[in-house]
């Protein structure tokens, strides 16, 4: 039995197989409509997340399975003081697979260690969000045709943004990747990622504050939201939340085939006028997220057609 805690849990080859399966589901969804008949997915969301939870639920329903679960810690037994270890033992009796989101980092790992069913980390605090990374990889590979030889701009909250950290870790396994980090100095990429990951693996990168300075060189721009819930201080959040706003005028500087990705929800960092630009693929990204989660459920349940 396997769990998914980090995108690095899959080897490069396993990842390609998963992305191939997601592509196949995308091209012929009817083939998979009953693949999970009789199976149950538990969505244990201790922290609210409409997007990820609905994506998981939709994925299981589209595979013919059923779903149960809770959408916040208040509506679960955690409100009565039950530990994650005890909750997962109970969930193991009710479901065949579990997607867990928790505000505390490492909670899904604790669950996996006590679980008799596969556990998927659906986001743990500022730590990991592997299914978002799988979504990003599928989107890039499908729309760019490759995961190699790319100059990737990561913009916004690079300090607390778990999607950014996960994506860097996943992408550095491919050849010809170059990163451009665009952030205010308060939200710079953590030094351990620079030193222990990028420098150690000889991955070229540069850090800048102004987005306009680097836009023309990017193959991909990954925008992120400055997340209020990651700040202990409201003043810092207010000061930094609108530091970057991508608009039509700035997009004139970008390559004609540059893609804009965003893990969503978007607040002000991408102006709505950019939505109609064919390079804005963040809503397609949501669709890819559904297919990759369907592929993941099938893989972890060891169901093959």
């Amino acid at each position, binding site marked *: 039995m396997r769990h998914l805690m980090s995108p690095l849990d899959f080897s490069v080859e396993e990842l390609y197989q998963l992305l191939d399966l997601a592509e196949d589901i995308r091209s012929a969804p009817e083939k998979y409509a009953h693949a999970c008949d009789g199976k149950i997915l538990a969505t244990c969301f201790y922290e609210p997340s409409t997007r990820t939870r609905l994506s998981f639920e939709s994925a299981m329903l589209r595979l013919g399975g059923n779903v149960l679960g809770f959408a916040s810690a208040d509506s679960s037994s955690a409100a009565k003081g039950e*530990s*994650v*270890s005890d909750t997962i033992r109970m969930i193991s009796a009710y479901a065949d697979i579990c997607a867990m989101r*928790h*505000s*505390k*980092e*490492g*909670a899904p*790992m*604790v669950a996996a260690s006590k679980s008799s069913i596969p556990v998927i980390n659906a986001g*743990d*605090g*500022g*730590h990991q969000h592997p299914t978002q990374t799988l979504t990003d990889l599928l989107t890039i590979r499908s729309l760019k045709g490759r995961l190699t030889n790319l100059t990737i701009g990561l913009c916004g909250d690079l300090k607390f943004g778990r999607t950014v950290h996960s994506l860097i870790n996943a992408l550095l396994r491919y050849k010809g990747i170059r990163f451009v980090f665009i952030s205010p100095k308060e939200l710079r990429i953590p030094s*351990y990622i620079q030193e*222990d990951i990028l420098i150690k693996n000889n991955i070229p990168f540069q850090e800048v504050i102004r987005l306009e300075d680097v836009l023309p060189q990017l193959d991909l721009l990954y925008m992120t939201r400055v997340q209020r819930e990651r700040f202990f201080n409201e003043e810092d959040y207010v000061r930094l939340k609108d530091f970057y706003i991508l608009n039509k005028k700035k997009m004139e500087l970008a390559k004609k085939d540059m893609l804009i990705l965003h893990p969503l929800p978007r607040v002000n960092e991408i102006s709505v006028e950019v939505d109609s630009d064919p390079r804005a693929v963040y809503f397609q990204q949501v669709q890819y997220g559904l297919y990759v989660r369907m592929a993941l459920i099938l893989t972890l349940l060891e169901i093959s057609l």
Partner: protein
Amino acid sequence: MLNVGKIEEGFVLDHMKAGKSMEIYHYLGLDKLDYPVAIIKNVRSEKMKKKDILKIECKTDMLDLEVLGFIDHNITVNVIQNGSIVSKKKLKLPNEIVNIIKCKNPRCITSIEQELEHVFLLTDAEKEVYRCKYCEEHYNYIKSS
């Protein structure tokens, strides 16, 4: 000059940083065991100027000294049998340490679930970096010691 008698079987932990012996006594759980222990503090040393020494009389298979590699891998561990040194143990950084240091990340699951063990894994032996098994919070022994 203070004199402490020889032990027949057990360990002599030498070259401990002066003042560290009580800490190590607790790390090894010696306060919970019924072995005769001599704690010798501030002994003059040519190499270290001052050092601490611990003498523990016990069966040599009764004590797990792996944790010493994390606390200070410069400690010399002399294994004593029949009143003589029979070997010196080379200490190395353990791959995993359990309940020795606590994760200080307020966002870590260990901050709310009290029964969880605090487990740190060695992620960079060269830089002596440990990371929390759950949240990957960084702990650098060199900087912290």
